[in-house]
């Protein structure tokens, strides 16, 4: 397993984008490499791709906050809990190889998960309250327990705001909508964040 790699399992839509961007940013800022299934080769079976990413990542972050559909007629999506269960299965399948895997679960509120997925009680579950500043704080604080030399969350939050103004300005100048999650691929977003952070730091 790569000790610098973090598998991310979260919703991929414009409503979640304001939380996904700071999540990617804080991981890159503290020296880690995010892995999302959208970065994979589209020719491969998605589940196999996710499995490979999970097998190679020491850390995983699963955001289960999207339990409620947006409208009454919508159905809730189960991809996130499914992939979370898959990851736990890998961890428990071979304690010698994967026992040291670390999994962080994100939710909107701290104890809401008990109503719909109580089996995960006792694991690392943090609430981001759907606030970008809070997602940076809880993720940074969790990694502080696991890796050395992690900067203060406030430093990351301030840097994120500066990055965001550059992100908006550059994309707008190129004719892209910076609020659109599909404006750039995740590979591009991660690469450009990495370049920006390298120069900033």
């Amino acid at each position, binding site marked *: 397993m790569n000790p610098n790699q973090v598998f991310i399992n979260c919703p991929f839509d414009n409503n979640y984008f304001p939380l996904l961007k700071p999540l990617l940013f804080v991981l890159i800022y503290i020296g880690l490499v995010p892995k999302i299934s959208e970065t994979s080769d589209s020719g491969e079976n998605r589940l196999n791709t996710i499995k490979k990413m999970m097998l190679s990542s020491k850390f995983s972050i699963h955001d289960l906050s999207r339990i409620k559909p947006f409208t009454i007629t919508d159905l809730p999506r189960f991809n996130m809990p499914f992939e979370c269960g898959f990851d736990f299965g890998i961890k428990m399948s071979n304690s010698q190889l994967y026992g040291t895997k670390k999994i962080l679960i994100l939710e909107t509120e701290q104890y809401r998960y008990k109503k719909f997925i109580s089996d995960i009680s006792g694991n690392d579950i943090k609430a981001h309250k759907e606030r970008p*500043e809070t997602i940076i704080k809880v993720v940074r604080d969790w990694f502080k327990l696991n890796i050395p030399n992690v900067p203060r969350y*406030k430093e990351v939050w*301030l*840097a994120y*705001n500066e990055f965001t*103004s550059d992100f908006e300005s*550059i994309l707008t100048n190129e004719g892209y909508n910076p609020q659109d999650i599909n404006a750039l691929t995740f590979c591009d977003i991660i*690469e450009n964040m990495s370049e*920006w952070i390298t120069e900033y730091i």
Partner: protein
Amino acid sequence: MARTIKKTELTKNFRAAALNSKKMVHIVPSNDGWSVKKEGIKRSYAVKETKKEAVKIARNIKSVESIIVHKQDGSVLKIIDMADSKNRKY
């Protein structure tokens, strides 16, 4: 459909943006108030209880060219252009 932009061109823009020592100040909302942040400096220049106080501090920073006020999600709410003399209130 958005036009395709060369990957390297975009990356160069991001790199340049991080390096550019623009005389900009960011007003960043936070759990403990409103931070005044000079571009490229990691720590806050000041932290104030209200946005109004933070903007006032930023206006008085020497040579500032723009003040960028951010929303709670980090996106830009508005940009105050200090070249416009009506924005200079000391």
